[in-house]
């Protein structure tokens, strides 16, 4: 129709590159490593660090889907209960004579079903918010776990099962290998695929996404099911690490996970943040806790530190994109009103 030339080559900007939140987290991680090694002589020790890594990685699996969920402006606070329920189902089935592999399969299935149910309710009843749905199912799922196991614990798993949570492949913890594989997958999925692009689109503007032919409902079902599935994987590792399980395990895990995701720079207003940030945040919080644990900081101080760190980091993210952020906030509310 005409001859206007529009550029389609991207200009690379170092400034832009280094102003990413992820660098801030990398810096934080370096500082924490320096701090830890200066306050405790036991920190710089390969076995110690790798052992510590194993203790905080179990719940980190839920971070992957939670990042997607929060980018999509939703939230899932039932994941802790999903961990408990799927863990309890797995252990009870095993104790009832089901082979361990099948019990693990059932665990994954239960987790996925829990997540699917959340997603289904959310999609079927559009006016319901995710907070309400998952708050209800949070109580429900744990309630079911209590119905199944009452005050008992279930365990006595085969010896190979403990390898999952405790084992090393060569010098590297098995769980870390699996986590890295999942992490690479998650980063690629969110940043390099159409799936990821759609996740961001839905979070940035759900209405426009739907009008653009994105199957928003199906996407929601997928990510919530994924959250359930990852909660089940967490359940497997957690159960393996404990060797037995109870209905009260993984209490408040959702809050830990949300804290990691928020620290990772994912805004609950949707559409913003990177998977890599959340993955870095897992290690920031994990090693901070470990380092403070090495100098035997009391639990209450640890609580305060984590709380303050969370608020401080989010404050910085907010100040960072203040202009953009506010614009978006108001846009969002317009949308809600309409």
């Amino acid at each position: 129709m005409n001859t206007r030339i529009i550029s389609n080559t991207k200009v690379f900007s170092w400034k832009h590159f280094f102003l990413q939140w992820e660098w801030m987290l990398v810096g934080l991680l370096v500082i924490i490593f320096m701090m830890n090694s200066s306050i405790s002589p036991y920190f710089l020790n390969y076995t110690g660090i790798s052992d510590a890594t194993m203790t905080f990685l179990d719940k980190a699996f839920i971070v992957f889907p939670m990042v997607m969920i929060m980018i999509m402006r939703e939230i899932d606070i039932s994941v802790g209960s999903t961990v408990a329920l799927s863990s309890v189902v797995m252990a009870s089935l095993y104790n009832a004579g089901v082979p361990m592999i099948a019990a693990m399969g059932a665990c994954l299935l239960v987790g996925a079903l829990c997540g699917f149910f959340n997603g289904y309710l959310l999609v079927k009843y559009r006016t319901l918010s995710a907070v309400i749905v998952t708050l209800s199912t949070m109580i429900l799922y744990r309630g079911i776990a209590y119905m199944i196991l009452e005050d008992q614990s279930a365990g006595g798993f085969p010896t190979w099962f403990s390898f999952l949570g405790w084992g090393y492949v060569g010098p590297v913890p098995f769980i870390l290998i699996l986590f890295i594989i999942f992490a690479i997958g998650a980063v690629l999925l969110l940043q390099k695929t159409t799936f990821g692009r759609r996740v961001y689109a839905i979070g940035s503007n759900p209405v426009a996404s739907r009008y653009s032919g994105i199957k928003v409902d199906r996407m929601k079902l997928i990510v919530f099911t994924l959250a359930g599935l990852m909660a089940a994987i967490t359940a497997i590792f957690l159960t393996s690490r404990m060797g037995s399980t109870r209905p009260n395990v993984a209490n408040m895990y959702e809050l830990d996970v949300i804290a990691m995701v928020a620290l990772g720079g994912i805004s609950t207003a949707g559409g913003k943040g990177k998977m890599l940030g959340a993955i870095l945040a897992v290690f920031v919080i994990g090693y901070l806790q470990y380092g403070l644990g090495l100098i035997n900081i009391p639990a209450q101080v640890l609580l305060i530190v984590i709380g303050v760190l969370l608020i401080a980091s989010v404050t910085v993210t907010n100040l960072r994109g203040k202009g953009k952020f506010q614009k978006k906030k108001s846009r969002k509310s317009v949308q809600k009103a309409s």
Partner: protein
Amino acid sequence: MTEKNLLKHINLANISKFREFGLLGFIVLLAIVFQILNPAFLTFGNLADLTKNTAILSILALGMMLVLITRGIDLSIGATLALSGMIAALTVREFPGLSPLLAILIGIVVGVICGVVLGFLVSKVGILPIIASLGLMNAYRGLTYWISGREWVSAYQMPASFKDIATSSILGINTLVFIAIMIFLFFYYFVNNTITGRQIYALGSNPDSAKISGINSHKVYMLVYTMMGGLSGLAGVLWVSKFASAQGNTASGYELTVIAACILGGVSINGGIGKVTGVLLGAVLLGVLDNGLPLIDVSPFWQMGIEGAIILIAVLFNTIVKQTVEKSHRLRRVI
């Protein structure tokens, strides 16, 4: 669409108009079931217990209602409650002669300070309420352990006057219940008949317009979180007085119960909607469940599952009614 279906829709529409009556009906139904299964349910003594146990929950739920109406959320109230309860208890342990009114005041002041911090983070710094209150929840809880030196304050360390706050009565009504009623009346008046009260609804209903209408949104956010904090502080003192013990882990996770009460009471998490009477009924419903389930010999391990199922059903019922009403609005148009 048959005539009969149409009629059904219109009936449902009426129910939603009187949503509170629906909730009340459900409570009555539940009460009847409990009564049939255990005649001790509808006795004066048990009902007195029930109201006493629901008082604190309803106080907190009213505060949470305002927060939710402004599209916010406060997850730190359990920790605020523990912190202010603990500080009040430590104070009366040191100064047994302290007037109980002053103890209540101390609790409220601590709560207000906690609320102001959260309000500041939300309104001025612009952190999302769920994240800000999550962070503060950790911080306040940690502070509670720190201040108490991880000790408890036990019954014998509290003066009788302090413990009497919860057991005494005013005008023949238990003080806890009396305070809850007073707060209920205040809220009823406040949200319906004062400008500030209506501004809270306006802000939640449409934050952008509120700006143009000259509503100072910072002030309103500060106000609701401060009120929530103050009420948590008050609840903290009442809690400690009621159970005659202050622990570091007091009311851990209680915020979720409070939010559940609000949701049952019809408060919308998307802001703008919520009635004082509804929230009260929501709190009472949870109170009835907590009181009734142990009475009818339900296995203690089933209680949580049953509660979860009832909350989910109530939430779904509410939504289905709402959707049906919208449909019937459309139906009335003849084409």
